[in-house]
């Protein structure tokens, strides 16, 4: 885990602490996936085209956060990347916040919207990509699979879905997505920056089908005493605990 990943963990946990509620464990499983996207580079070039000084730049790639619980992680990454965020941040993704593309309060809504965005890119022949982070539980919704089906039918190769599987189970994600006509890239270590960036790079190169990056993550990843312990899923850490985490991370 690199220094930036550790700093972001602390900043995201501090955001949750300031807001007074949040899902620390589920948020920490996603933070490296978002960090890899925003800070990943290939030969010095961004793999996710964006400009913190011009959040509405027309040529940008789009990141859609469907997994609502990971919002503090996104806010922390945006802040670190140089976006100017408001002092009071919303509890749900809201596109009034610079860098946040979609307003949503419902599971799987962001995924459906990301498919629509990728469809618009295909219609207009634009050179942009849409990345969408979803939690594994979101795929229990019918509309998520409707969207997944449509993405494959329409061959939306500008769409990359990042599946954060922080609750290991026996679902055959690879077989499921491939049966719908998706390309699946499974990450071996979903908290390793280089592995994540390599996954995104491969996703960008996919042609004529959408890509799913299957990321088997760990809840509360990076916080040794809380890792994979369900009692820390929705914890809001106190100042003393945050101080202890600071000592552990930095």
């Amino acid at each position, binding site marked *: 885990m690199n220094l930036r990943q550790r700093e972001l963990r602390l900043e995201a946990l501090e955001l949750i602490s300031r807001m007074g509620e949040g899902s620390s464990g589920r948020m920490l499983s996603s933070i490296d996936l978002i960090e890899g996207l925003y800070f990943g580079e290939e030969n010095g070039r961004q793999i996710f085209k964006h400009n913190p000084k011009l959040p509405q730049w027309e040529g940008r790639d789009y990141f859609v956060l469907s997994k609502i619980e990971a919002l503090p992680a996104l806010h922390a990454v945006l802040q670190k990347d140089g976006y100017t965020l408001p002092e009071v941040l919303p509890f749900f993704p809201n596109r009034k916040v610079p860098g946040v593309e979609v*307003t949503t309060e419902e599971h799987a809504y962001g995924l459906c919207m990301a498919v629509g*965005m990728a469809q618009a890119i295909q*219609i207009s022949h634009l050179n942009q990509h849409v990345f969408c982070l979803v939690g594994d539980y979101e795929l229990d919704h019918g509309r998520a699979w*409707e969207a997944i089906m449509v993405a494959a039918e329409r061959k939306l190769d500008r769409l990359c879905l990042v599946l954060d599987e922080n609750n290991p189970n026996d679902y055959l994600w690879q077989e499921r997505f491939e049966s719908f006509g998706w390309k699946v890239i499974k990450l071996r270590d979903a908290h390793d920056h280089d592995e994540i960036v390599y996954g995104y790079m491969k996703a960008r190169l996919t042609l004529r089908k959408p890509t799913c990056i299957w990321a088997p993550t760990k809840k509360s990843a990076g916080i040794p005493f809380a890792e994979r312990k369900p009692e820390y899923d929705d914890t809001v850490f106190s100042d003393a605990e945050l101080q202890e985490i600071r000592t552990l991370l930095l």
Partner: protein
Amino acid sequence: MMLDIKLAQIGLKIKNLVVLDLTFSQGKFPEFKRAYESRYIHLPGRKEMALAFAGGLSAFGKIVLIYGMDSEGCEVPDRTLNIKLVEEGPEGQWEIFEEELKAFGPAVLLIPEEV
């Protein structure tokens, strides 16, 4: 179908018009599909995701027309999304439809299915 022909004509002038057809099982816009294949999307019965999908399209400046959906159950978490219900005029004509589309700008328009 009158609306199909009208849309095929309008589609030539409004390049960012996209039609989502939710009718099952055959689509209701053969003329529009023939003329602008990439702008016609047939999603038979997929009402659950259609509105969010249309929201994604309209984020890129598209005017999205959803055929086969009315305002019932039309609850979207994104309050910034422009949604309008469009119904056939009293004389059964779609004459002022083009003006309405242009006036409304990038948005999602719902047209209930004809009985």
